[in-house]
């Protein structure tokens, strides 16, 4: 972590460069930084040279190896997928959950279960279509509220702003469902010397993610084409479809994936992490199997929870076949290579990888 930097540096290095992921880590910790939809801004500089805002940001310099050691007690054995204990396929046993979820319903099932067990007292989640295109960060106080947050939305909400807000009022073990950038920020918050809400977090479920769309761009694109207050689901069917489907109560519309390129957040282009490498549990899709998730267990605490969930019939697992695992690794490596290419294109210097402080050895692997 870089010491001695604050909001002006955050503005200069991240916000003005279009590198903000809108994770919300810098929001709700002071009166100066606000988020609306997926836009974060320093409304007025606070005048302080150093700030938590800079410290917590997933796009300010981060020592990846140090973070690995802190969370997993070791440096990453696997350059493509980070540290993990196991990787398999999983699905929620409850059909109701599966029918509401984007894929296998594992995230909803595990969060519900962790709350029922009392492992966590509240969960910070994202409600995908809250009467409009924009997802909102919500706090579930009861497990019955979790399912209302199932399914994906391809716009990032400021989940950590929600976390910061709720932890001002209450201290309880908290579970969070995050995108990879949000997991990174959350772990930086936990590692920080400053007191903050992330230190109340006991369970981090990270999602697989390749990119998110900017609200402003996507909204302008969809506006007038369909009723944005009636969106039920947004989905990207597996290749070779190459489309994005927006399903509303008044029918579905398909758009070529190519049309979305312009709205992808620039922050996603330099993202190194497809599989939420710093999460306790990472969950994604399984290509060609709509009803299943890829499940990566990364920490021993998560392993215990999942073992229990399996025994109690909350989720069902089966091995992930070698071909799919290879494909997952390739996809993840590809994202890393592209990210580093994009970063070097910005900096013009192979040694300056912006936020990524990698060991010499790690850096060489991707160049």
């Amino acid at each position, binding site marked *: 972590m870089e010491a001695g930097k604050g909001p002006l540096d955050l503005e200069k290095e991240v916000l003005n460069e279009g590198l903000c992921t809108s994770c919300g880590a810098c929001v709700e910790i002071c009166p100066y930084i606000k988020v609306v939809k997926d836009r974060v801004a320093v409304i007025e500089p*606070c005048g302080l040279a150093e700030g938590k805002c800079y410290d917590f940001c997933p796009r300010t310099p981060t020592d990846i190896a140090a973070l690995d050691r802190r969370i997993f007690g070791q440096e990453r054995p696997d350059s493509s997928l980070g540290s993990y204990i196991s990787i398999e396929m999983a699905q929620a046993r409850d059909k109701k959950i599966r029918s509401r979820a984007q894929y296998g319903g594992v995230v909803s099932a595990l969060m519900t279960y962790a709350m029922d067990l009392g492992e966590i007292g509240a969960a910070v989640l994202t409600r995908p279509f809250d009467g409009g295109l924009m997802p909102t960060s919500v706090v579930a106080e009861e497990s019955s509220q979790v399912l209302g947050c199932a399914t994906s939305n391809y716009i990032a909400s400021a989940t950590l702003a929600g976390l910061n807000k709720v932890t001002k009022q209450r201290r309880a073990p908290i579970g969070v469902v995050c995108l990879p950038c949000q997991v990174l920020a959350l772990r930086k918050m936990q590692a920080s010397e400053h007191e903050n809400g992330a230190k109340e977090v006991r369970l981090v479920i990270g999602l697989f993610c390749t990119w998110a769309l900017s609200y402003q761009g996507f909204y302008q694109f969809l*506006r007038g084409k369909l009723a944005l207050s009636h969106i039920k689901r947004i989905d990207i069917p597996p290749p070779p479809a190459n489309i994005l489907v927006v399903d509303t109560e008044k029918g579905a519309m398909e758009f070529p994936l190519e049309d979305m390129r312009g709205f992808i957040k620039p922050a996603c282009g330099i993202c190194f992490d497809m599989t939420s490498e710093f999460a306790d549990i990472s969950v994604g899709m399984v290509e060609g199997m709509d009803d299943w998730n890829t499940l990566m267990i990364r920490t021993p605490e998560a392993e215990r929870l999942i073992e229990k969930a399996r025994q109690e019939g909350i989720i069902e697992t089966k091995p992930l076949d070698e071909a799919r695992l290879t494909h997952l690794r390739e996809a993840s490596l590809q994202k890393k290579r592209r990210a580093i290419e994009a970063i070097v294109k910005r900096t013009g210097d192979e040694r300056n990888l912006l936020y990524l402080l990698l060991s010499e050895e790690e850096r060489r692997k991707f160049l």
Partner: protein
Amino acid sequence: MSILAMDQPGRSVLMMGNEAIARGAIEAGVDFSTAYPGTPSSEILESLARVAEHFGFYAEWSINEMVALEAAAAASFSGLRAIVAMKQNGVNVCSDFLLTVNLTGTKGGLVFVVGDDPSAISSSNEQDSRNFARFADLPLLEPATFQEAKDMTRWAFELSERVGLPCMIRSVTRLSHSRGNVKLAEIPQRSRSARFEGGYVAGVFVPIKHAELHQKLEQAREEFEGSEFNWYVGPEQARFVIVTSGSGWLYSREAVAALGLDGEVGILKIGTTWPLPERFIVDHLKKVTEVLIVEEVDPFLEQNIKILLAEQAKTLGPIEVYGARSGHLPAFGDINQDKVARALADVRGLEYRTRDEQYARRAGELALTYLPPRMPTFCPGCPHRASLWAIKAALKLDGRDGFVTGDIGCYSLGVGPAGFWQLKTLHCMGAGIGLANGFGQLGQFAFDQPVVAVCGDSTFFHAAIPGLINARFNNSNVLMVVLDNGGTAMTGFQPHPGSGTDALGRPAPVVEIEAICKAIGVEVRVRDPFEVDQAIEELYDMLQDGGAKVMVFRRKCFLVESREKARPRVFVDPEKCIGDDCGCARFCSRVFNCPGIIWDQEAKKAKIDEVVCTGCGVCATLCPQGAIVVEEG
């Protein structure tokens, strides 16, 4: 009993200049009075409205100066005596009518009072409205004392009736807003009834009517020649004379006395400054070789006197004229006794020092030592502070370098730190939405900055509606934010069509701003600006779509609200405020900067100044620690 209604002829009372003008109208038996509030003129109609029921005359706050003048002219056309009052900018608003009613003429006495604001103490310009009298060929009176303010007003009705023209009275801030002794005269019994006869049509036989207008003006000049408002004081054989009008009269007297020049310098005081009483002036300048002209703002008197001197060169011989053109007095800002004395001393080759040269320096040093630095700011509890913070946040979040076009009202302070420097343009009433109309049409020129036009509720009715209709009609990309605090706050909370009472405090129908917007066909939302986060989000949302839109930020001016109901107690919980450990960097007392919030130097925590705090409680919603407590009273 109000001194306005005091029926004790001969009694001397202390009166504000504007009250004296109102009293003059009452002593003329005024029937009809209108105005749009504006500093320094507002107290004229306020004073009249206070006694309107008592005397049975009519008083209204009109929605703008144009309507005010037209309504007053209608009363005049019907044979009644009418007065209309406004500040200098208002003359521009009603000038279209002014420059046609001069042609049609008037019937009942119509007195048109303008309060000019030299130095623009409460204005966006310091125009010299006397130019309008010359421009429109209307008789002009300039009171120099409080007594004259009253007596000239009374006489102006008679003059107006005799010449059949509106008669203009020009006051200035220093006269309108200071107080002096005024000797009262009788209040007549009013018995006029209104009847419209004949016609008042400007558009036909215009050159003929224009020629008639010039004849009427000549008639006024004849009246001015013998006017009691023009006089000369000083030695009979003075070679040096100060010619002055209005506020310059008292300054000149002081300056002459201070320099001990009573025996050498005469003062020719002109109260009727357009058209000039030429014979009167020439008579008093026959032995004079040097003249210093003393007047406030433009060299109006100076230019007209110079024309006269040129025309009378054979009679008067060469006369040296000092004033604005010679650089002895400024043609901008207000003047004072000091400036006049310095000019006089300079011309006369005298040493003049009002005080020790070091005085100003020492006073400045002392002021900096003992007075805390204060920037102009909004009142405690003012909704504009939160509104402008929300606008700033929404524009910053939007990220396209959007900006605010400003308008006239309390919120004009938004050009400075009080409103976080948000207002980037400031001109006249209605200019905010007008300019925004243009900015909102620049899309084809690669312009992508969002434009927010702000205007107050009174300004909305006064001048902003046509701009909004234009934005709708031509589909301009404009977000208009109406800062609705329930009245014309800047000038003293006079009612307007949205506020539910009339000038006399009686219930009046409410014209709803949002209903007007809906009828125009624009999207309109109403929001309490104290719900700051929601306000920011809604503004942000509105900025994302094109077209004309209106957000009404509605919250009553807290100075009024706090008079109407019990004030909640607001205080800082010292347990929760963690001072400089917070990381908020004293947001409440430093950035949001409500005067009710102070920094306790000893405790190193924020503190509410309970004397100043109005109890609005918006700070409690902004404190990141939730350390500010609002206890309902």
